[in-house]
């Protein structure tokens, strides 16, 4: 399955997460739309490195002045890295949600799990339906 993502590809979920896959690694964060809806993010709880998750499991918690929300694992696998900077600088999620505001990296076990996810255009349409 590693061969499946020789190039970096970004997918989106209905829960407003982005997941960028490259090789057998998937970087996860929340989308710009989600960050805007949440308002100022004040706290992010990232998972511990080594945690094994199944697609749909609770992966992280993001808390804003409005609400606390769960972030779900978009793919199954093992958490191999987390964004430690978010602990002291949760504002990165608002400032650069789809780059510096990344949450964690999952070494995924099944590349086929990306099949149900959306590409950028489909996600854009999906957000229009949400508003």
């Amino acid at each position, binding site marked *: 399955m590693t061969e499946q993502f020789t190039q970096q590809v970004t997918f989106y979920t209905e829960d407003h997460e982005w997941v960028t896959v490259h090789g057998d690694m998937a970087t996860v964060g929340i989308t710009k739309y989600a960050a805007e809806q949440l308002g*100022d993010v*004040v*706290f992010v709880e990232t998972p511990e490195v080594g945690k094994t998750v199944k697609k749909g499991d609770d992966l992280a918690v993001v*808390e804003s002045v*409005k*609400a*606390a929300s769960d972030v779900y694992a978009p793919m199954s696998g093992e958490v191999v890295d987390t964004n430690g900077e978010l602990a002291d600088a949760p504002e990165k999620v608002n400032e650069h949600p789809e780059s510096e505001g990344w949450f964690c990296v999952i070494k995924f076990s099944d590349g086929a799990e990306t099949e149900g996810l959306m590409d950028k255009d489909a996600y854009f349409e999906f957000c229009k339906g949400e508003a």
Partner: protein
Amino acid sequence: MTMNSTGRPTTPSGGETMSDIQTVSGSRGLMQHEDLIFETGCTNKTGVDLPAPKGLKNRLGGVARKRSTELPGLSEPETMRHYVRLSQKNYAIDLGLFPLGSCTMKHNPRLNEKVARMPGFADIHPLQPQYTVQGALELIDQLAGWLKKLTGMPAVAMSPKAGAHGEFCGMMAIRRAIIARGEIETRTRVLVPASAHGTNPATAVQCGFKVDEIKADKRGRVDMEDFKAKLETSDDIAGIMLTNPNTCGLFETDIREIAELIHQAGGYFYCDGANFNAIMGRVRPGDLGIDAMHINLHKTFSTPHGGGGPGAGPTVLSDALADYAPVPFVIHDEDGYKLVEEAEGEGEEAFGRLCAFHGQMGMFTRALTYMLSHGADGLKQAAEDAVLNANYIQARMKTVMTPAFDGYCMHEALFSDAFTADNVGTLDISKALIDEGYHPMTMYFPLVVHGAMLIEPTETESRAELDRFCDSLEAIAERAKAGDESLKGAPYLAPMRRLDETQAARKPVLRWYKPEPEKIAAE
């Protein structure tokens, strides 16, 4: 005549507008400026005049404090003024309409307070011999009787001390029932609708269950398709936690079917009774198939809250769960009333004990006073008036604001921020209400509605007061619709202007530090 015959002028002669005036003290007229108590008091004085103890031996070894605690010393009048001034910056139900949705901020009748202060109720101790407190035990028993009658349930646990504590009690009873069936290893999933109070999923997790969220449908109620889909595999279902009326202020119309299906699946039905005020005397939860429900005495039965409590959350239980009610509870026989304190005999199946004693006696006294002074018909009317008042607000405001869902509401009116211009929103409307002299409504809850504004007037308010509130809200809503930028600076007239909630959450300042001496000298 030596008397001053000109008198004093009695007609105001105009002058500057209020906002131009700066005062030396920082006070705004009779709205007093008040520093922190650490800044007011000084550490080398004290408000009490006691002789230093004689012959005191230091038996603390090396751990005795070597320097001053630096606590501020104030005289009695200074202390009184400090707290009274702070209290005058506060908002209270005794001051005005308190529209916080989901909180049921109703008037706390003075009669409740009078009865709660009667020495036979106020000056007793939980460890007194039971034969000396028969009246108090009878009161608990009577209140339990009313709660059972109103809910149509066979049992009630009186000791939970708040709503969430009551949830914990109910879910522990459910857990105990599942243990008795030998299924605790497998039945681990609790269904919770998306609109639930945050305490519901928290309680489920605290009791060792996993939370599975059910979607809301377009009518603001449980999405029955999603609910049924979640029951397709039901071997792991422990139960459902549902609020009725729900946090959108709507009656869950499919509630009997929900009860039937959850029971068929082998689960139990926990109902969050936070909104019982809307249906008291009209609907008996026992008839709906509910297995456990807490009742917030501090909402529905007019005992005080909002100042940090204490609350009280007695939890009614169905036949399936009654035996697992926690100790202690009151029973009576020909010898009088007594407390069952141990998990043996009468309390053999109890899941345990929730707190040291039997609950919030002061709240029991107030709640029973409210029930007896209203009577059964009065309680029913209170529920009806609460629903009428909320619908009055919804009907008046829907010309400007966007109701979240179609149709009548129950005890609270819910609006979304769809009507506002892009540059202003729910937060700005809430802050502007402070300038109008009102506590803001509940905002951004429930989460299923965008920019939610949840308004619960309760039965306390007269039509005249509702109209005054609606006039204020209407004017603000019109400004929000027009995109009035000035809303973003509100409140302008409060003791403190708008706080930076983001910074407060990201970098909280949790204690006071004494300013450096050189800084004081410079000032």
